[in-house]
Protein backbone atom coordinates (compact mmCIF):
# COMPACT_ATOMS: atom_id res chain seq x y z
CA UNK A 1 0.00 0.00 0.00
CA UNK A 2 1.30 3.42 -0.94
CA UNK A 3 1.94 5.72 1.99
CA UNK A 4 2.76 9.38 2.50
CA UNK A 5 6.14 8.27 3.95
CA UNK A 6 6.91 6.78 0.56
CA UNK A 7 6.24 10.18 -1.01
CA UNK A 8 9.11 11.57 1.07
CA UNK A 9 11.45 9.04 -0.59
CA UNK A 10 10.08 10.00 -4.04
CA UNK A 11 10.80 13.64 -3.17
CA UNK A 12 14.44 12.90 -2.39
CA UNK A 13 14.94 10.81 -5.52
CA UNK A 14 13.22 13.40 -7.73
CA UNK A 15 15.26 16.19 -6.21
CA UNK A 16 18.48 14.36 -7.08
CA UNK A 17 17.29 13.95 -10.67
CA UNK A 18 16.30 17.63 -10.88
CA UNK A 19 19.78 18.63 -9.68
CA UNK A 20 21.36 16.36 -12.28
CA UNK A 21 19.46 17.99 -15.15
CA UNK A 22 22.26 19.99 -16.66
CA UNK A 23 20.65 21.25 -19.80
CA UNK A 24 16.88 21.35 -19.77
CA UNK A 25 15.40 20.41 -23.13
CA UNK A 26 12.42 22.73 -22.66
CA UNK A 27 10.27 20.35 -24.70
CA UNK A 28 6.55 20.59 -24.01
CA UNK A 29 3.80 18.17 -25.02
CA UNK A 30 0.22 19.49 -24.89
CA UNK A 31 -2.84 17.26 -25.18
CA UNK A 32 -6.24 18.70 -26.18
CA UNK A 33 -8.44 18.26 -23.09
CA UNK A 34 -11.75 19.93 -23.88
CA UNK A 35 -14.99 17.88 -24.03
CA UNK A 36 -14.22 16.86 -27.63
CA UNK A 37 -10.71 15.70 -26.75
CA UNK A 38 -11.80 13.81 -23.63
CA UNK A 39 -14.66 12.08 -25.49
CA UNK A 40 -12.26 11.07 -28.28
CA UNK A 41 -9.73 9.51 -25.87
CA UNK A 42 -7.37 12.29 -24.75
CA UNK A 43 -6.98 10.93 -21.22
CA UNK A 44 -5.50 7.52 -22.20
CA UNK A 45 -3.29 9.37 -24.71
CA UNK A 46 -1.99 11.62 -21.93
CA UNK A 47 -1.41 8.61 -19.67
CA UNK A 48 0.45 6.77 -22.48
CA UNK A 49 2.74 9.80 -23.00
CA UNK A 50 3.44 9.94 -19.28
CA UNK A 51 4.10 6.21 -19.11
CA UNK A 52 6.44 6.21 -22.11
CA UNK A 53 8.45 9.16 -20.74
CA UNK A 54 8.63 7.45 -17.38
CA UNK A 55 9.74 4.10 -18.88
CA UNK A 56 12.50 5.84 -20.78
CA UNK A 57 13.56 7.84 -17.77
CA UNK A 58 12.86 11.19 -19.43
CA UNK A 59 12.20 13.63 -16.62
CA UNK A 60 12.64 17.06 -18.17
CA UNK A 61 9.74 17.14 -20.63
CA UNK A 62 6.63 19.02 -19.58
CA UNK A 63 3.29 17.35 -20.26
CA UNK A 64 0.30 19.67 -20.17
CA UNK A 65 -3.15 20.25 -21.65
CA UNK A 66 -4.54 22.61 -24.21
CA UNK A 67 -8.10 23.63 -24.99
CA UNK A 68 -10.19 23.12 -28.10
CA UNK A 69 -8.84 24.56 -31.34
CA UNK A 70 -12.15 24.15 -33.14
CA UNK A 71 -11.18 20.98 -34.97
CA UNK A 72 -13.08 18.57 -32.75
CA UNK A 73 -13.29 15.81 -35.36
CA UNK A 74 -9.49 15.56 -35.40
CA UNK A 75 -9.17 14.94 -31.66
CA UNK A 76 -7.26 13.63 -29.78
CA UNK A 77 -4.80 16.34 -30.80
CA UNK A 78 -1.25 16.48 -29.44
CA UNK A 79 1.09 19.45 -29.88
CA UNK A 80 4.85 19.02 -29.51
CA UNK A 81 6.87 22.17 -28.81
CA UNK A 82 10.63 21.91 -29.23
CA UNK A 83 12.52 25.16 -28.52
CA UNK A 84 13.78 26.80 -31.71
CA UNK A 85 11.49 24.72 -33.89
CA UNK A 86 7.98 25.18 -35.18
CA UNK A 87 5.16 23.53 -33.21
CA UNK A 88 4.12 20.12 -34.57
CA UNK A 89 0.43 19.23 -34.29
CA UNK A 90 -0.53 15.56 -34.39
CA UNK A 91 -4.16 14.61 -35.03
CA UNK A 92 -6.28 11.55 -34.29
CA UNK A 93 -3.68 10.30 -31.85
CA UNK A 94 -4.23 7.05 -29.99
CA UNK A 95 -2.18 5.41 -27.23
CA UNK A 96 0.06 3.57 -29.69
CA UNK A 97 0.76 6.67 -31.77
CA UNK A 98 1.35 8.70 -28.59
CA UNK A 99 4.08 6.30 -27.47
CA UNK A 100 5.71 6.46 -30.89
CA UNK A 101 5.59 10.27 -30.90
CA UNK A 102 7.45 10.26 -27.58
CA UNK A 103 10.14 7.92 -28.89
CA UNK A 104 10.59 9.23 -32.45
CA UNK A 105 9.92 12.93 -32.02
CA UNK A 106 10.52 13.87 -28.38
CA UNK A 107 13.49 11.59 -27.70
CA UNK A 108 15.05 11.02 -31.16
CA UNK A 109 14.10 14.40 -32.65
CA UNK A 110 12.34 13.16 -35.77
CA UNK A 111 8.73 14.35 -36.14
CA UNK A 112 6.37 11.76 -37.66
CA UNK A 113 5.12 13.88 -40.56
CA UNK A 114 2.37 11.57 -41.80
CA UNK A 115 0.39 11.99 -38.56
CA UNK A 116 0.50 15.77 -38.50
CA UNK A 117 -2.41 18.10 -39.21
CA UNK A 118 -0.82 19.26 -42.49
CA UNK A 119 -0.88 15.73 -43.83
CA UNK A 120 -4.34 14.80 -42.67
CA UNK A 121 -6.63 14.00 -45.59
Amino acid at each position, binding site marked *: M*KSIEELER*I*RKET*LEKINLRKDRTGIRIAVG*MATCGIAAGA*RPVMMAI*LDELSKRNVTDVI*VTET*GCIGMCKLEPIVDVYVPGQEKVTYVKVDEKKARQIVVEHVINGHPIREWTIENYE
Partner: protein
Amino acid sequence: MKELALYILDLAQNSIRAEAKNIYIEINIDTSKDMLKVCIEDDGCGMNEELLKKVVDPFVTTRKERKVGLGIPFFKELVEQCGGKFEIFSEEGKGTKIRGTFKLSSIDLIPIGDMSSTIVSLILSDPEIDIVYRFKKDEYEFLFDTKQFRKVLKEVSLNEISVLNWIREYVKENMEV
Protein backbone atom coordinates in the same frame (compact mmCIF):
# COMPACT_ATOMS: atom_id res chain seq x y z
CA MET B 1 -18.32 8.71 -22.54
CA LYS B 2 -18.19 5.41 -20.72
CA GLU B 3 -16.91 6.40 -17.28
CA LEU B 4 -18.11 8.84 -14.61
CA ALA B 5 -14.42 9.71 -14.21
CA LEU B 6 -14.39 11.15 -17.76
CA TYR B 7 -17.42 13.36 -17.05
CA ILE B 8 -15.70 14.51 -13.87
CA LEU B 9 -12.51 15.29 -15.81
CA ASP B 10 -14.53 17.29 -18.33
CA LEU B 11 -16.39 19.30 -15.68
CA ALA B 12 -13.23 19.93 -13.66
CA GLN B 13 -11.56 21.21 -16.85
CA ASN B 14 -14.26 23.91 -16.83
CA SER B 15 -13.11 24.80 -13.30
CA ILE B 16 -9.51 25.14 -14.54
CA ARG B 17 -10.68 27.40 -17.37
CA ALA B 18 -12.64 29.42 -14.81
CA GLU B 19 -9.27 30.05 -13.11
CA ALA B 20 -10.11 28.14 -9.96
CA LYS B 21 -7.43 27.81 -7.28
CA ASN B 22 -9.21 24.94 -5.55
CA ILE B 23 -11.30 22.10 -6.95
CA TYR B 24 -13.32 19.77 -4.74
CA ILE B 25 -14.49 16.45 -6.19
CA GLU B 26 -16.70 14.05 -4.32
CA ILE B 27 -18.09 10.62 -5.13
CA ASN B 28 -20.42 9.37 -2.44
CA ILE B 29 -22.05 5.95 -2.62
CA ASP B 30 -24.75 5.04 -0.14
CA THR B 31 -26.08 1.56 -0.87
CA SER B 32 -28.79 1.73 1.80
CA LYS B 33 -30.21 4.83 0.09
CA ASP B 34 -29.60 3.42 -3.42
CA MET B 35 -27.65 6.60 -4.19
CA LEU B 36 -24.46 7.67 -5.92
CA LYS B 37 -23.64 11.35 -5.67
CA VAL B 38 -21.05 13.18 -7.77
CA CYS B 39 -20.08 16.69 -6.79
CA ILE B 40 -17.61 19.10 -8.42
CA GLU B 41 -17.06 22.43 -6.76
CA ASP B 42 -14.62 25.23 -7.56
CA ASP B 43 -13.67 28.74 -6.51
CA GLY B 44 -13.31 29.98 -10.07
CA CYS B 45 -14.90 33.01 -11.72
CA GLY B 46 -18.43 31.59 -11.55
CA MET B 47 -21.30 32.62 -13.81
CA ASN B 48 -23.83 35.37 -13.76
CA GLU B 49 -27.52 34.50 -13.52
CA GLU B 50 -28.09 34.90 -17.24
CA LEU B 51 -25.34 32.44 -18.24
CA LEU B 52 -26.28 30.03 -15.43
CA LYS B 53 -29.81 29.76 -16.84
CA LYS B 54 -28.50 28.97 -20.31
CA VAL B 55 -25.54 26.76 -19.49
CA VAL B 56 -27.43 23.45 -19.80
CA ASP B 57 -28.21 24.37 -23.42
CA PRO B 58 -25.73 22.54 -25.72
CA PHE B 59 -25.64 25.57 -28.02
CA VAL B 60 -24.24 27.83 -25.35
CA THR B 61 -20.51 28.15 -24.69
CA THR B 62 -18.03 30.83 -23.67
CA ARG B 63 -15.54 29.51 -26.22
CA LYS B 64 -14.77 31.30 -29.44
CA GLU B 65 -13.45 28.24 -31.32
CA ARG B 66 -16.79 26.49 -31.67
CA LYS B 67 -20.45 27.17 -31.09
CA VAL B 68 -21.40 24.18 -28.96
CA GLY B 69 -20.70 23.49 -25.29
CA LEU B 70 -21.47 19.90 -24.43
CA GLY B 71 -19.78 19.23 -21.08
CA ILE B 72 -22.59 20.27 -18.73
CA PRO B 73 -25.48 19.10 -21.02
CA PHE B 74 -23.81 15.66 -21.36
CA PHE B 75 -23.59 15.28 -17.59
CA LYS B 76 -27.17 16.50 -17.03
CA GLU B 77 -28.42 14.07 -19.66
CA LEU B 78 -26.59 11.16 -18.01
CA VAL B 79 -27.93 11.98 -14.54
CA GLU B 80 -31.50 12.29 -15.79
CA GLN B 81 -31.23 9.12 -17.85
CA CYS B 82 -30.38 7.30 -14.61
CA GLY B 83 -33.46 8.67 -12.85
CA GLY B 84 -31.34 11.13 -10.91
CA LYS B 85 -31.23 14.81 -10.13
CA PHE B 86 -28.90 17.37 -11.67
CA GLU B 87 -28.15 20.62 -9.83
CA ILE B 88 -25.92 23.57 -10.62
CA PHE B 89 -25.15 26.54 -8.40
CA SER B 90 -22.94 29.42 -9.37
CA GLU B 91 -22.14 32.90 -8.24
CA GLU B 92 -20.06 35.36 -10.19
CA GLY B 93 -16.68 35.84 -8.54
CA LYS B 94 -17.25 33.01 -6.07
CA GLY B 95 -17.36 29.75 -7.99
CA THR B 96 -19.52 26.96 -9.31
CA LYS B 97 -20.90 23.76 -7.85
CA ILE B 98 -22.33 20.92 -9.91
CA ARG B 99 -24.07 17.98 -8.31
CA GLY B 100 -25.47 14.83 -9.85
CA THR B 101 -27.42 12.45 -7.63
CA PHE B 102 -27.82 9.10 -9.35
CA LYS B 103 -30.00 6.13 -8.57
CA LEU B 104 -27.37 3.48 -7.81
CA SER B 105 -29.50 0.62 -9.12
CA SER B 106 -30.21 2.33 -12.45
CA ILE B 107 -29.27 0.06 -15.36
CA ASP B 108 -28.11 3.15 -17.26
CA LEU B 109 -25.54 4.07 -14.62
CA ILE B 110 -22.02 3.79 -16.02
CA PRO B 111 -18.99 2.67 -13.94
CA ILE B 112 -16.95 5.20 -11.95
CA GLY B 113 -13.95 4.26 -14.07
CA ASP B 114 -10.36 5.39 -13.73
CA MET B 115 -10.37 8.24 -11.20
CA SER B 116 -6.59 7.97 -10.75
CA SER B 117 -5.99 8.95 -14.40
CA THR B 118 -8.57 11.73 -14.13
CA ILE B 119 -6.78 13.24 -11.12
CA VAL B 120 -3.35 12.92 -12.74
CA SER B 121 -4.71 14.59 -15.92
CA LEU B 122 -6.07 17.46 -13.83
CA ILE B 123 -2.74 17.95 -12.06
CA LEU B 124 -0.97 17.99 -15.45
CA SER B 125 -3.48 20.53 -16.73
CA ASP B 126 -2.61 22.94 -13.94
CA PRO B 127 -0.14 21.81 -11.25
CA GLU B 128 -0.78 24.97 -9.21
CA ILE B 129 -4.42 24.12 -8.49
CA ASP B 130 -5.22 22.32 -5.26
CA ILE B 131 -7.47 19.32 -5.62
CA VAL B 132 -9.41 17.64 -2.87
CA TYR B 133 -11.00 14.35 -3.80
CA ARG B 134 -13.29 12.56 -1.39
CA PHE B 135 -14.46 9.04 -2.17
CA LYS B 136 -17.08 7.58 0.13
CA LYS B 137 -18.65 4.17 -0.11
CA ASP B 138 -20.91 3.44 2.83
CA GLU B 139 -18.53 3.21 5.84
CA TYR B 140 -15.34 3.53 3.76
CA GLU B 141 -13.80 6.94 3.12
CA PHE B 142 -10.72 8.00 1.19
CA LEU B 143 -9.59 11.61 1.25
CA PHE B 144 -7.05 12.90 -1.25
CA ASP B 145 -5.65 16.40 -0.81
CA THR B 146 -2.86 17.88 -2.94
CA LYS B 147 -2.10 20.37 -0.12
CA GLN B 148 -1.01 17.45 2.04
CA PHE B 149 1.35 16.24 -0.72
CA ARG B 150 2.80 19.72 -1.29
CA LYS B 151 3.79 19.83 2.37
CA VAL B 152 5.84 16.66 1.93
CA LEU B 153 7.19 17.49 -1.53
CA LYS B 154 8.25 21.08 -0.71
CA GLU B 155 10.26 22.37 -3.73
CA VAL B 156 9.36 19.35 -5.87
CA SER B 157 6.41 20.07 -8.11
CA LEU B 158 3.32 17.88 -8.30
CA ASN B 159 3.78 17.47 -12.07
CA GLU B 160 7.11 15.66 -11.83
CA ILE B 161 6.61 12.30 -13.56
CA SER B 162 7.81 10.27 -10.55
CA VAL B 163 5.32 12.08 -8.31
CA LEU B 164 2.47 11.62 -10.79
CA ASN B 165 3.20 7.89 -11.04
CA TRP B 166 3.02 7.65 -7.26
CA ILE B 167 -0.24 9.64 -7.12
CA ARG B 168 -1.78 7.44 -9.79
CA GLU B 169 -0.98 4.27 -7.86
CA TYR B 170 -2.01 5.84 -4.55
CA VAL B 171 -5.48 6.78 -5.81
CA LYS B 172 -5.90 3.46 -7.60
CA GLU B 173 -5.09 1.50 -4.45
CA ASN B 174 -7.44 3.52 -2.29
CA MET B 175 -10.33 3.20 -4.73
CA GLU B 176 -10.22 -0.60 -4.67
CA VAL B 177 -12.87 -1.33 -2.10
